[in-house]
């Protein structure tokens, strides 16, 4: 058992830290709120190999794993890098990689990994909280392909996407279709989100050619794996967010004076800061499990790891975010201060790919949860 980063991972971490310091410090996240994507920077990430990090070499990827991705995303979280890495690379990318044929990988995954194409997964539907499966979006076979009809909500990264992967039922079973932006009958509405990173709402009634249906793997499994990977990596980004929020808070406690002393000398505030620190360490600890198991083939093992990490992030991250604002006092409530940016991103991360309640239930619904032979 070993929790140390490999030399390659340490290098990746150093590079990523240097990158965000120079190219995407927190001020950039503030400036780009509700704004357009910087495609040049995204392509640069592609050139660095980051966009192909979690994909196998046989699909043209870097051959890394989710521990590598976690290293990167923790750094991204620390300055709230606004690029849709989680939504596009981790979520849509995993689904594409798992469900696509080699031809389809060539056609869409390669361009995505080079940073030329932004892909987003549209799976969330009204009336089904964080369900990984399609419910009312339907595709019906027609001449040369499918008629795809439905609505998708809160498609993360969707406002930047060139290409959507859309889930829909075909004959009652989940299927996945690649639908480029601009397809006739597809309406993409950009919306603002609490964290300023935005999303899209989709409505579609479109013809989709047969070769745009992903047929290289089980679509239900691909969705489940994509969402697990995304949930696990949310925890990595969340760790970065928490750590920065804690650092800002500690710095405030040490410098802000009241009654002639730094407020960090007050024991009640010290103990609060310690509680925040402990929560951050717990997130860091459980992330190790989630990153290592994010692509485990046994769904019970994978769900155990990703759901427990996501629940812990929700509990710890919210506490850290709330206390960070509280300990900042009045200035923490102002939009001008940076702590609020972390506060809101933290909440977006706890929601994304399943909130606390969803993952508590999923954790408790695993067969292993009630298998009492396991434990002794």
């Amino acid at each position, binding site marked *: 058992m070993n929790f140390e980063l490999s030399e390659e991972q340490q290098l990746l971490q150093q590079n990523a830290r240097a990158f965000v310091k120079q190219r995407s410090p927190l001020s950039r996240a503030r400036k780009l709120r509700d704004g357009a994507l910087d495609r040049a920077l995204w392509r640069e990430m592609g050139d660095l190999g980051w966009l192909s990090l979690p994909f196998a070499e046989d699909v043209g990827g870097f051959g890394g794993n989710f521990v590598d991705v976690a290293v990167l995303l923790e750094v991204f979280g620390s300055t709230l890098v606004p690029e849709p890495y989680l939504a596009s690379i981790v979520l849509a990318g995993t689904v594409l990689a798992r469900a696509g044929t080699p031809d389809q990988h060539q056609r869409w995954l390669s361009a995505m990994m080079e940073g030329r194409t932004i892909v987003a997964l549209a799976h969330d539907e009204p009336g*089904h909280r964080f369900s990984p499966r399609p419910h009312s979006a339907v595709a019906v076979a027609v001449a040369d392909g499918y008629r795809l009809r439905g609505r998708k909500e809160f498609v993360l990264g969707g406002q930047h996407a060139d290409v959507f992967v859309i889930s829909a039922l075909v004959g009652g079973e989940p299927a996945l279709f690649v639908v480029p932006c601009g397809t006739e009958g597809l309406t993409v509405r950009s919306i603002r989100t609490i964290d300023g990173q935005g999303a899209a709402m989709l409505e579609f009634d479109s013809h989709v050619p047969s070769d745009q249906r992903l047929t290289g793997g089980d679509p239900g499994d691909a969705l489940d794996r994509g969402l697990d990977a995304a949930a696990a990596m949310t925890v990595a980004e969340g760790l970065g967010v928490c750590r920065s929020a804690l650092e800002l808070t500690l710095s405030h406690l040490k410098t802000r004076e009241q009654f002639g002393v730094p407020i960090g000398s007050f024991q009640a505030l010290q103990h609060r800061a310690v509680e925040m620190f402990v929560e951050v360490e717990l997130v860091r600890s459980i992330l190790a499990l989630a990153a290592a198991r994010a692509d485990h083939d046994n769904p019970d093992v994978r769900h155990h790891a990703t759901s427990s990490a996501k629940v812990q992030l929700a509990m710890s991250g919210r506490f850290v975010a709330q206390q960070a604002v*509280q300990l900042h006092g*009045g200035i923490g409530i*102002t939009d001008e201060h940076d702590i609020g940016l972390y506060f809101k991103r933290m909440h*977006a991360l706890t*929601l994304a790919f399943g909130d606390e309640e969803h993952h508590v239930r999923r954790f408790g619904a695993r067969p292993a949860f009630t298998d009492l032979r396991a434990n002794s």
Partner: protein
Amino acid sequence: MDLSFSAEDNAFRHEVRAWIRESMPTDIAAKAEIDAHFDMADVMRWHKILFARGWVAPHWPKRFGGPGLTATQRFVLTEELELAGAPALSPFGLSMVGPAIMQFGTPEQQERFLPPILRGDEVWCQGYSEPGSGSDLASLRTTARIDGDDLIVDGQKTWTTYAQYADWIFCLVRTNPGAKKQAGISFLLVDMKTPGVEARPMLTIGNTPAFCDTFFANVRVPRANLIGPLDGGWTVAKALLGHERTLIAAVGPSQRMIRRIKRIATDTTDGGQALIDDPAWRSRIARLEVKLQALQMANYRALAGAALGHAPGPESSILKLRGSEIYQQTFELAFDLMGSHALAWFNEPGVIPELEQWVASGYCYNRATTIYGGSNEIQKNIIAKMLLGLPGA
């Protein structure tokens, strides 16, 4: 012990309720329905409607224009206004500087300043906190030096809510830099139109306009605008802080939120089942409603004590602490019920139901409730020393 209201008070309640229903403009009522943010124009319009009815300042003595209500009637009026989701009036004139002027001002000052507050013709804001002095108010550094019949004010105030709309600001200023902390402070009224005063509005993390930084550069203010004696402002300030605390138990707003939570939980389905019919969500709502019920009883105890002329007892000190926390918890629960919808920022028509539109914003900016009005940490210090008699550190 008797938990019922008298027949008279119940009649008064019905009168208030009916009046609100008739008098609230439809656009304000529509915002109230979804607890949307009221802008300053809404607030002042409602102020004038209340003024016309004579109910704008229920706690003012009759001789200054108050309606002469009993303590219970005042409470009933406030409760009904809160339950109806009416715009909260600005407290700075009505509840803060107004009572201070009544207690410490000269007859001339009272005549000059009180009527426009009552009518809503002049909007006030508060210049207490400074970037370097929040909880430790007495460490403030804004100065006012005497120059003939005037004072020259220099410095910066923060948390000056409504300064961007205000006609006047009441400030604590240091008039005697040599004196000890509290001793050299004066209470001064400054016309916001005076040259050298600049209010820079800020947004909250909920993206609502809320408070300002207000800068004073060589601002000339007549000495006649001092309330209380020169260097005697701390006494005025202390009297005024007492008024603030009871404003923020927020029982009414929390009750509205519980109702909104239940409506959201009824309208939100997961696989065809409304969340309110899901045992886990229903339990969470029930637990919060219980906590609010206990707080409301504590609030009633404080009211009943006040109606008997008792000084506020220990029960009133818990109102700010738990009231602010519970109000935050109502937003947190509403936020959680919304699921993905909570990601949506407000003012995006049609993305999420109207009823949910202001929840995420409110969740964010109401983190302030445990900070303002004396942070909850400061409240605990006060309770520890004043009520529990615990020794100083």
